[in-house]
């Protein structure tokens, strides 16, 4: 489908809605707190984007709803946790360089381990149920149970306090507003990842083939591209994104627990339903909406924070059932 008037109208509606959403809470929140909450909301939104984009791309290309994405997310957090434990002196060192170095090491390790898990998952389990949504959900749900239990076996069943590299726990004081450094880092990570995904999809040949595959898998095969290799690669990339999200989120919330994936998977689903399954930009917009509204509402009516996202999701489903940025199919 080309950019129709309706779609453009929808985009304007989204922008207008986002601005209203941004400003409305000012009624009940003092200005400074509002800014702090906004930064927290953007940071959380970016982290949710990391999880949701994987779900969205995997669905877009492979037509697979991956309920194991949350478990991969948790694995990412735990692998990072282990690396931090091993390299404790780098984590505690009062050196920005060493702190970032250890973060990068943890990140690479987490993404590699989880991408490998993703490859195994795709090749051994998911490949058997292509085209059968019901069995996909069942089997990836089963995989979640196994992966989460493996975390309990390997790392123990209890919640742990996440170790945080020293720089990440500091904050800046800008005009009397306290800005947590890590939140800004999260926003930057999210923007970089969005940029990289967009670059790969729009500017590289591989990305072009992936986008073509989203539209018409058979045709891409008939043009001589090994779609199954592509599937495995995209699944591994999605898993890697989940790992990145898991590690970043665990530093954000300062804890790891075996079942952490299910909570964030839920957020990811809400995000992709709002944004439109299969669209990366939709995931970003959806994630920011969820992150911001969660933080505003958590301040105003603490117990309703999780509910407001479901409510937004229901409203979106009523007015635009395919989400704000429906992917072309």
């Amino acid at each position, binding site marked *: 489908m080309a950019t129709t008037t309706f779609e453009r109208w929808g985009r304007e509606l989204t922008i207008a809605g986002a601005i209203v959403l941004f400003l409305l809470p000012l009624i009940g929140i003092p200005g400074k707190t509002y800014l702090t909450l906004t930064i927290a909301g953007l940071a959380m939104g970016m982290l949710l984007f990391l999880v949701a984009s994987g779900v969205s791309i995997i669905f877009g290309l492979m037509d697979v*709803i991956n*309920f194991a994405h949350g478990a991969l997310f948790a694995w990412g957090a735990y692998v990072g946790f282990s690396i931090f434990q091993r390299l404790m002196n780098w984590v505690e060192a009062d050196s920005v360089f060493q702190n970032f170095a250890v973060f990068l090491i943890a990140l690479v390790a987490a993404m590699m381990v989880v991408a490998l898990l993703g490859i195994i998952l795709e090749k051994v*389990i998911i490949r*058997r*149920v292509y085209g059968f*949504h*019901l*069995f996909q*959900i*069942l*089997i990836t*749900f*089963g*995989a*979640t*149970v*196994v992966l989460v*239990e*493996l975390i*309990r*076996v390997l790392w123990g069943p209890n919640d742990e306090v996440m170790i945080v590299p020293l720089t990440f726990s500091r904050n800046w004081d800008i005009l009397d507003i306290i800005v947590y450094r890590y939140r800004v880092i999260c926003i930057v990570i999210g923007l970089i990842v969005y940029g990289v995904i967009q670059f790969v999809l729009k500017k590289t040949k591989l990305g072009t083939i992936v986008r073509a595959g989203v539209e018409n898998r058979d045709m891409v095969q008939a043009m001589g591209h090994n779609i199954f290799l592509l599937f495995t690669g995209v699944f591994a990339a999605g898993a890697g994104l989940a790992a990145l999200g898991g590690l970043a989120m665990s530093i954000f919330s300062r804890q790891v627990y075996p*079942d952490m994936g*299910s909570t964030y998977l*839920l957020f990811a*689903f*809400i995000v992709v*339903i709002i944004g439109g399954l299969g669209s990366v930009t939709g995931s970003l917009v959806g994630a920011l909406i969820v992150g911001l509204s969660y933080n505003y509402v958590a301040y105003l009516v603490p*117990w*309703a924070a*999780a*509910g407001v*996202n*479901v409510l937004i*999701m*229901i409203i979106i*489903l*009523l007015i635009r*059932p*395919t989400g704000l940025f429906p992917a072309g199919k």
Partner: protein
Amino acid sequence: MAEPTPVQIFRIEEKRKQYRSGSFFLKIGILALFVLVPFVFPSYKTVDLAMQIIMFATLVASFDILLGYTGILSFGHGMFFGIGAYCVAFLIGKYGMPSYLNLALGFVTAALTASALALLISFLSLRVKAIFFAMITLAIAELAIVLATGLSHFTGGEDGISLSMPGIFAVSFSIGDFMGLEITGSVLTYYFIFLSCLGLFLLMLRFTHSPLGRVLQAIRDNVQRAEALGYKTFIFQIISITFGCVVAAIIGGLYAMWVGYVNPASSLEVMAIMLNVLLMVIIGGMGTLYGGIVGAAFLLITQTFLPDLQNLAKDFFPQATLLHNVLERWLLLFGILFILVVIFFPKGVIGSVQDYISRRKTILLGKE
């Protein structure tokens, strides 16, 4: 005589099955077992286990109406169960008093609330894609937990509500001994729940064997074909989903009667109840209704006696720490079992056995 046509074979099989077949006696045997449990094994542990199996088997069957007969996966079944539990708890506990009328009203409220919510969710999700049902129910179930915990002045929050039963169901009630067993309120509750579940189960059997049920199976197997035949698939799916969810809510109410309290952790924990139900339906076999009994019995019995098994393992193999760890994490084994069953026996225990028997029968008929 000419070769029997497939329809004739089917009829012959049906007739055989009716009263004389092994499966008929098996069903009678299972019923008798559950009737006798309070007399033969009066300890709380066994009676509770039997009760849990009965309730979960019925709950799994109601889940199977959605999954096996409609092809819709819901993660909100635990929530409907919880809604039923809370409705009954509100009416005879927090906002009412223990009376038969309130108990009945509780069940009516449960059914009405569940059907309203089921209609809403179906409308929201089926408009887009059937898979949205799974995602949306997961989200709404989470919302329900948040609401139940958050609106604490209304729902009793994390502490939940404890309730006392009216009249003959009250814990203190007793009508004396019968065949060596004191017939207390809880024994009567056991039989009341047992009969209710039996009734619900028969109702579901009737539902799936009705013309409506057959249309549902046609839709599950091939949506396009059913649509081409002129069926409004949307309507049929909604009817079936609502039916399954209402049954789940009623079982939730019965569950509240049995345990005597409800709280978000016990009644609304999506993951725990859903996980159990999913394991049971997959292991038992979807699309059979009876699969729930096998699945529920297998899972609950294993879970109940697992601590004993662990102790046994520790006594016999005190050195094998790996074994202990794995037994400690029994869910890992169930998860692997779950995946294997989905891949290799997608019909579960009951479905695979049924396949085997019908294959044997066709071979036998062919020889005759």
